[in-house]
């Protein structure tokens, strides 16, 4: 690891001030992505601003419009939350499919979406459920948040504070995980709300994306059969030692059907 100065602010304002005052400061959430990449010297920073001692950044709130999840809420808390299980069981299933217990005990929703790993699960949850990301400056719609490989719409020093999820009529999560790392080879979140369908795919491209042809077919007929014959082109899909592009394209179809079946399951 390259050297850095460590900060442990007790308030969001203090965290912002320390980030602003540093040459190349970075927030630290669960550390499950940042610490391994710093260990490999794939990333470095002048100042590490730990968000773990700030009150009020973690928590799950049910309100009339939906569910608000604080940025520092751990994956394990979302997986176990009675509110999430009741309102959006697919989101609890997503959280419970991330990594392993030890990773879920530390990793946070804010860290996951800010890191924007191409194989991360939460980005599909945000986009597939049409959530919005609240920062210390503004609210960003899911469709505008993920912009590229490890890239988001966040500005320098902008901090994610919470994520707002509307409650859909139905939603389903299906993941084909890598056996060793547990990251998604391909995973799909689908939701149905007020006649509108959102279907988001992670693991297959540089960043999470929607599939309009599948959404249109599902809006007309929300069933796995409606997806029969709709193929996703393999051009531009990721290729690595786990799966080539053609296999990933095939998996998108399979996971999309499984997600719809999960959404329809009683």
């Amino acid at each position, binding site marked *: 690891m390259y050297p850095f100065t*460590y900060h*442990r602010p007790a308030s969001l304002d203090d965290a912002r001030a320390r980030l602003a005052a540093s040459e190349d400061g970075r927030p630290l959430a669960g*550390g499950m992505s940042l610490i391994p990449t710093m260990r490999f010297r794939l990333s470095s920073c002048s100042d590490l601003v730990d968000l773990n001692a700030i009150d009020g950044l973690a928590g799950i709130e049910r309100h009339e419009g939906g569910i608000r999840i604080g940025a520092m809420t751990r994956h*394990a808390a979302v997986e176990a939350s009675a509110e999430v299980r009741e309102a959006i069981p697919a989101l609890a299933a997503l959280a419970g499919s991330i990594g*392993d*217990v030890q990773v879920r*005990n530390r990793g946070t929703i804010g860290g996951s979406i800010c890191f924007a790993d191409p194989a991360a699960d939460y980005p599909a949850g945000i986009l597939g459920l049409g959530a919005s990301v609240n920062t210390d400056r503004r609210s960003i719609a899911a469709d505008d948040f993920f912009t590229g490989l490890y890239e988001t719409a966040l500005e320098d020093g902008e901090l994610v504070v919470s994520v707002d999820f509307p409650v859909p009529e139905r939603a389903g999560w299906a993941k084909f995980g890598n056996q060793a*790392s*547990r990251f998604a080879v391909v995973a799909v979140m689908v939701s149905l709300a007020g006649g509108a369908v959102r279907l988001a795919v992670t693991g297959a491209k540089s960043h999470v994306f929607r599939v309009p042809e599948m959404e249109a077919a599902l809006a007309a007929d929300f069933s796995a059969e409606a997806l029969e014959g709709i193929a996703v082109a393999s051009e531009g899909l990721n290729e690595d030692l786990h799966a080539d592009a053609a296999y990933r394209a095939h998996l998108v179809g399979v996971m999309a059907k499984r997600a719809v079946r999960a959404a329809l399951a009683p």
Partner: protein
Amino acid sequence: MAEASVTLTVNGREVSATVDPRTLLVHFLREQLQLTGTHVGCDTSQCGACTVHLDGRAVKSCALLAVQLEGADVTTIEGVGGPDEMHPMQTAFKENHGLQCGFCTPGMVMKGIDIANRHAAPDEATIRRELEGNLCRCTGYHNIVESIAAGAREMSG
């Protein structure tokens, strides 16, 4: 780079130390506190050999900085029992042949206790799913699963 000081509880005892902020918890435990029961089995935070309990929950000590743990409560394998007085989960591993080379075992025992703390009588499927973050290169897992089931029975009984 400024050194930082940290005060935490390790195995029931308060420890104050000065650390380089880059020090991982696992290196702090092994090299500064000489608690070498916690192992390092990988550099990708995947193997679970470094599993300890932080405020009562299983975490990977290779993915945490020691400096983060101001006021925290950490338990390592040394804190649960030793040769003279073994924890029921340790005894269960011994009696069920739950280890071969033993490298993964400290992490497996810490994870086993964590599983038993959250599930009164975990079935095989639950134990296998809970063990996703702990790798073993020797046993094929069968006897580890048996050990944890037996240890959990002992702990709840």
